[in-house]
């Protein structure tokens, strides 16, 4: 590990000197530092900024402090009752130990687990721009089928973020340039020709909280994740959905996919197909197909197209 200076953040608008990074729970960053993929000169610890509360918003929504641990968020009774898809997504991710450290802000900003990105000795346009992408011809079984570019086929690894995208959550940030709010759907980028940039955040811009809006349909929501073993593995594909059906017709729906793209994928084309459609397997499959029309598989991950089709139908059927 490259050596670094350590200091505690003194305020929300502290910002970061060049070469510095924020340290939250550290469950991803410390690992990447050991691997030589992250090489910060300075670590600015944000754990003592008091960002660890979940508070009720006046309109009935919830504000989640960026420092709230994944395990505490998953166990919060308000989240379990009003946004079960979020609790389910959090509990489907990582392990008890990791969830006790990992923070809400850090979970959103975790990096891909693509094996070429995780290996500082391999070419990778994400850790070394311009060095190439061996994944396209190499190991890409668990990489993207949607929104990828010739420069990067990585997937975003978070489960939590998939639920937040489905729930129309908003991140609030603070930095030297001031404060702003960004829908989580717009926080993460597609790789394009700049795969080294995961998000739209500026250097030194700190996520301070995530707001969950009032969303009636969210009380009837579910997260299902497919992985290579029964627990404690990243998704090969996942579905976050909220659904309300009245008189056999879809009244409202939210749908997002994980493990298929460089960002948590809000399936808006499928949602459009579903609103007003008769509830049933034919509608579920037609909606999934509409979203998957743009999917492009590589040699070893084309199976994900069929997997997401079936998984989406299963989750919507389960909720209907």
């Amino acid at each position, binding site marked *: 590990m490259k050596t670094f200076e350590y200091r505690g953040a003194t305020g929300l608008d502290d910002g970061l000197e060049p070469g510095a990074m924020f340290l939250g729970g550290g469950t991803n960053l410390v690992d990447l530092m050991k691997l030589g993929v992250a090489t910060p000169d300075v*670590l600015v610890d944000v754990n003592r900024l008091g960002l660890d509360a979940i508070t009720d918003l006046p309109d009935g929504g919830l504000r989640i402090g960026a420092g709230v641990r994944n395990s505490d968020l998953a*166990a919060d009774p308000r989240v*379990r009752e009003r946004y079960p898809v979020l609790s389910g997504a959090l509990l489907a991710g990582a392990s008890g130990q990791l969830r*006790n450290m990992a923070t809400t802000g850090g979970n959103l900003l975790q990096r891909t687990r693509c094996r070429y990105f995780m290996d500082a000795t391999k070419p990778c346009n994400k850790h070394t721009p311009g060095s190439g992408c061996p994944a396209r011809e190499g190991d890409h079984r668990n990489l993207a089928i949607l929104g990828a570019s010739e420069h990067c086929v990585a997937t975003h690894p978070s489960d939590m973020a998939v639920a937040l995208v489905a729930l129309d959550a908003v991140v609030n940030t603070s930095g030297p340039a001031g404060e702003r709010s960004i829908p989580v759907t717009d926080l993460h980028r597609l790789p394009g020709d700049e795969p080294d940039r995961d998000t739209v955040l500026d250097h030194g811009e700190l996520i301070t909280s995530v707001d969950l809006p009032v969303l009636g349909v969210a009380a009837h929501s579910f997260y299902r994740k497919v992985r290579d073993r029964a627990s404690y593995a990243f998704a090969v594909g996942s579905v976050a959905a909220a659904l309300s059906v009245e008189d056999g017709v879809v009244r409202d729906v939210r749908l997002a996919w994980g493990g298929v793209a460089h960002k948590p994928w809000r399936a808006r084309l499928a949602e459009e197909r579903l609103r007003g459609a008769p509830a049933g397997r034919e509608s579920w499959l037609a909606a999934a197909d509409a979203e998957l029309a743009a999917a492009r598989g590589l040699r070893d991950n084309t199976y994900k197209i069929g997997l997401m089709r079936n998984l989406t139908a299963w989750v919507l059927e389960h909720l209907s």
Partner: protein
Amino acid sequence: MRLIVNGAKHELDLDPRTTVLDALREHLGLTGAKKGCDHGQCGACTVLLAGRRVNSCLLLAIAHQDTEITTVEGLAGHPVQQGFLDHDGFQCGYCTPGQICSAAGMLDEVAQGRPSAVTEPHDHDLLSDTEIRERMSGNLCRCGAYPNMVPAIRQAAAQAQETPR
């Protein structure tokens, strides 16, 4: 640098890169917590941080100076230790300190009513075999001694209920 481990305060002169795991093993002589993968994937390094189970290989010591750390050495006599002895919950023993710390932390989570990925809404049995396996999935055992760990943990849970610690 200060570390508070098993109730004792220690003054140490450590490189900022030192993890809690390395501080425990290399500088404090507490070799109970094991280095397995050193990347947060195996759970052998599990300790309790302010009573909550965490992977000590992913904690920078410099960032955790004022929080009580409990290692397996600090859990001597815990019902989980007795459970593992009574049910032969190990083979080679390398993962065992992490399993014991993890199980101790997990039982506290269950006592607080915290859900797991397999908890159904309004489910009240948070310690079924399925629950124990899911909740302990962050601790790998290459010997595959899992079948005996499940009753070991079940026994510890029952004992903990009888005699609250």
